[in-house]
């Protein structure tokens, strides 16, 4: 069971990856507009030779099939091409931006899981109470407000009117003289982190509340209660541990998806992460970079999926691999 499941899992992942490679290649090559016309409109008109040279330089003059084969070979060898816009290897650009995304993504995910688990378990444990329905309504509200609106709202109120936080960017202008300072970066990261947290908390909350609701009615909770344990003790020692299980999958998925989901927040805050990079790459039609971003995203989601699957039985011995999917 274990081996077979593992094999299938890897096979599907590979298949998905190949499909995404092909898809990204086809789509991105059929996209209207090319880099030269966006960035150097006059050069392309006045000097056809420059256009020729440019095409030759980047291999755009070969047939599509040739380009595809070359692309696949290169991807497998870890060479994801050169970004036209940056003139650097795509992987290098992406990895740099990825680390900036991580600066806001990790704290936001941890924070939203912490808050979501806390109020979600309270809400599920006391379901039907006044507090529960109050929190539930607030969460509907939070979930209904789109992330870009949170970002704009936070900048407008805390950044513009109250002048407490910077309007965007990732470090102050003084960093040019004094170098990068940790507290300066954190100061700039605060609002994006809050905005990301606000948009991810409702999801965590619902999952936690549902999972708690299912556990409240279980026999072992009744048993614990009849032993005379206090409510808090039952909640912490018996209910919470089991209700936390779906959090693993959620955590992995959250990390994987939010990389793209933060596109609005990063764009609005001018935070130099993956989302902002995607937005920029789209604007100037930087095909190799876009392909790289798309591939990296697929890769991250596949890995997160597998990791979540295989961490399950480590945490809950009852769940053998393949039985919970």
């Amino acid at each position, binding site marked *: 069971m274990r081996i077979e499941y593992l094999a299938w899992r890897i096979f*599907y*992942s590979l*298949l*998905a990856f190949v*499909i*995404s490679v092909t*898809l*990204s290649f086809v*789509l*991105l090559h*059929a*996209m*209207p507009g090319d880099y030269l016309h966006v960035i150097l409109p006059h050069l392309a008109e006045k000097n056809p030779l420059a256009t020729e040279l440019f095409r030759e330089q980047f291999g755009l003059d070969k047939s599509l099939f040739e380009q595809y084969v070359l692309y696949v070979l290169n991807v497998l060898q870890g060479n994801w091409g050169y970004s036209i816009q940056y003139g650097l290897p795509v992987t290098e650009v992406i990895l740099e931006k990825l680390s900036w995304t991580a600066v806001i993504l990790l704290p936001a995910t941890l924070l939203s899981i912490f808050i979501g688990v806390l109020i979600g378990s309270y809400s599920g444990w006391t379901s039907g109470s006044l507090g529960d329905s109050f929190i539930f309504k607030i969460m*509907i*509200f939070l*979930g*209904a*407000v*789109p*992330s*870009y*609106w949170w970002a*704009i*709202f936070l*900048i407008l109120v805390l950044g*513009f*009117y109250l002048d407490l936080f910077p309007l965007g960017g990732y470090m102050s202008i003084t960093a040019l003289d004094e170098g990068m300072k940790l507290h300066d970066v954190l100061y700039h990261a605060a609002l994006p982190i809050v905005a990301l947290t606000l*948009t*991810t908390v*409702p*999801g965590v909350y*619902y*999952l936690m509340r*549902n*999972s708690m609701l299912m556990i409240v009615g279980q026999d072992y909770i009744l048993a614990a209660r009849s032993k005379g344990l206090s409510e808090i003790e039952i909640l912490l020692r018996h209910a919470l541990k089991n209700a936390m299980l*779906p959090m693993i*999958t*959620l955590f992995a*998925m*959250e990390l994987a*998806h939010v990389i*793209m*989901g*933060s*596109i*609005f927040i990063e*764009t*609005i805050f001018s935070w130099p992460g993956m989302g902002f990079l*995607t*937005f920029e790459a*789209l*604007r100037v039609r930087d095909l190799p970079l*876009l392909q790289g*971003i*798309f591939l990296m*995203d*697929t890769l991250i*989601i*596949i890995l997160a*999926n597998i990791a979540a699957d295989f961490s399950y039985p480590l945490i809950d011995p009852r769940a053998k691999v393949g039985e919970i999917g």
Partner: protein
Amino acid sequence: MASLILLAIYIGIAAFGPCLAPYASSEIAGSPLEEPGRLHLLGTNDLGQDIFSNLLCGARATLVLGFLGALLSVLTALTFGTISAYYGGRTDEIISRIVDIMMTLPGFPLLIVLVVFLPSSIFIMAAIMGLLGGLQGIRIIRSQVLSISRAEYIYGTRALGASDHYIMSRHILPGILPLAAVTFINAAQRFMLMGVGLGFLGLGDPNVVDWGQMISRAYSNGGFALGLWWWLLPPGLAVVLLSMTLALIGYGLEEEIEPRLKNINNSKWFTNGYARNN
């Protein structure tokens, strides 16, 4: 109940907005950046266009995007989910595997790329969102149909000689309609937010006014830095209010049919990860 009335108002605006609006959406109706006043209820933008009129006209694009996308996605989910679960066997295997693989692809980037690649029109945008979103719905519908089609009365009907088509449309479909309704409302809310988001990113249809483009315009042309709240707030508040309305209706429906949805709730939150952040 209140949310239903609100939704009705929204739909009314979307239908008759252009007639109600005092100015045409692209008409230069006054001097740029006028404050709200008698002539322009919500002021004017940097081109001198009337924001109140734009708001009314923009409702149509945003609502069309949300509801058309949702309709398509529910239809996709219903069709393939029902076929997959009802026939089982190889059909089920093939459809499930395709869904499995497609789910591994990052949805939102795929959406962005597709929207850029295809000619920008709200109908095409709605179609793409609907098809991509429908993939997730297939699983939810499938599991529900699976449990229904194992019921005794389905066996009974079959024993009476009813055709597959008859069973599916007369006995299975009514059973999953409540679930489909909830899926529809949730999807409408999601796609509407997504559509506004795409407009905000500058990927919207340039021929129609929508709220996302209004926010984007106000945001990037200095509505912020000058503190021109009447330029930025109206489209944003309109989006938030509509989104809340749909969310409340969704939850209301869900509570109404709670016992059937209980075990599906969880999977819902697993599967719509990518959309949640918009």
